[in-house]
């Protein structure tokens, strides 16, 4: 009964608090990014104002076909995050994330924009790039912690960070790929000072774009949750270290976004698969030998 209550409370807390935390982090990231460019930058609350502004926009057509696929994308993003914070199986979370991305790709393909079709092509390549490392991460947690359930990993007796350090390094790389920022911003760029042609969101406007922005906030918190998982050892200190490292990783991602140009899709796939092969597979082999 208590377990069920904890699951429900965690799920509801994520559902309500994640967009605020994600939006605030996005605003702080933009402020940090502006500071790196010697600008003052917009307010930290600017992402919320942008979403409110987008919700005020109206177009002649009430609904486009891609609006429904974007709703499915938002739904699966939220499902992935709720499942993670409720302590579900890591594989289920990863599959929900992949399903969300698939719906986003379909939404871009059914629109009438050539840029959106190109963005969808690049989005598929991006998924192809990060998929192996994400699966290695799930396998690594399973081998070290003995379970793929997030609730079992979080109450584990020791920090998985050092035994899974290769997988952690690989995850940092694919986090940049997953968040669609430089140098891996193939299909979409959320940086206002960066690319202006948005790729997959080319045909989205108004409430659809606002929903996508909110879904990105949910995804940001979920991805930082993965980073947190590497440092959780059932103690409060593990949670504190995990939270601090997660926030530092976010700002490191913003810093890298400002320092690098965009790369070609061939380079992205090569580097992601190479990292998975070298760091991920080697880490799993070492775990197999040790355990």
């Amino acid at each position, binding site marked *: 009964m208590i377990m069920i209550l904890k699951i429900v409370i965690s799920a509801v807390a994520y559902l309500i608090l994640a967009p605020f935390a994600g939006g605030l982090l996005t605003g702080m990231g933009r402020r940090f990014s*502006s500071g790196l*460019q*010697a*600008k*003052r*930058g*917009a*307010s930290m609350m*600017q992402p919320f*104002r*942008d979403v*409110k*502004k987008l919700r*005020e*926009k*109206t*177009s002649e057509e009430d609904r486009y076909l891609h609006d429904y696929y974007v709703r499915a994308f938002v739904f699966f993003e939220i499902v992935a995050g709720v499942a993670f914070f409720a302590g579900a199986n890591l594989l289920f979370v990863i599959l929900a994330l992949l399903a969300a991305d698939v719906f986003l790709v379909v939404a871009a393909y059914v629109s009438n924009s050539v840029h959106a079709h190109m963005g969808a092509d690049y989005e598929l390549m991006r998924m192809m790039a990060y998929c192996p490392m994400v699966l290695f991460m799930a396998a690594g947690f399973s081998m070290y912690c003995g379970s793929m359930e997030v609730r079992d990993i979080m109450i584990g007796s020791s920090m998985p960070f050092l035994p899974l350090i290769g997988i952690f390094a690989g995850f940092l790389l694919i986090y940049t790929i997953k968040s669609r920022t430089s140098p891996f911003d193939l299909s979409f760029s959320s940086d*206002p*000072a960066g690319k*202006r*042609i*948005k790729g997959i*969101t*080319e*045909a*989205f*406007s*108004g409430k659809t*774009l606002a929903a996508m922005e909110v879904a990105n906030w949910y995804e940001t918190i979920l991805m930082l949750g993965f980073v947190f998982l590497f440092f959780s050892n059932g103690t409060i200190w593990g949670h504190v270290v995990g939270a601090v490292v997660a926030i530092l990783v976010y700002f490191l991602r913003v810093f890298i976004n400002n320092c690098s140009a965009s790369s070609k899709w061939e380079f992205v796939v090569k580097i992601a698969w190479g990292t998975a092969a070298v760091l991920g597979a080697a880490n799993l082999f070492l775990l197999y030998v040790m355990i």
Partner: protein
Amino acid sequence: MSYVEKNPWILHFDGSGCSGCGMEVQACFSPKFDVEQYGVRKTDNPKHADVLLITGIVEEENRDYLVHLYENMAEPKAVVAVGACACSGGIFEGCGDVVCGADQVLPVDLYVPGCAARPEIIIDGILKCFEKPETLEEPVAVEDPAKDEQEKIEEKPEDVTEEEQDDEE
């Protein structure tokens, strides 16, 4: 004031011409002026934009593209003509193919004068383009010195005519 008016995303259409005003718009995003601190973002997608910022000359060749961009923007939207060329054709007024002012093609909401318009006034224009005319202050009547001079000339006594001079003699 709605959130669209406070945080406009702009679509910059740089027509033909010297691109001076286009470069001033670019300068608005530099660290010196930093228009992004007001929540303004630049986008190349009309579906994401709130304000269509027109610089340079509108010609017969690019007027259809301009109209197409405007029609793809979602409501509420505004059009700002920046610089003398976009406002009235500027020094190219009367040249072949030049449409004298963007308001001949689209409903312009705000005109930003200048050749080239300064970044400060461009930023002011972007932030005020959604304001209704009745909310703007009444213009102050300014005395016209040329008009006063004309009135003084008209009040002077007329010169003696030749007939009056003959009578006197």
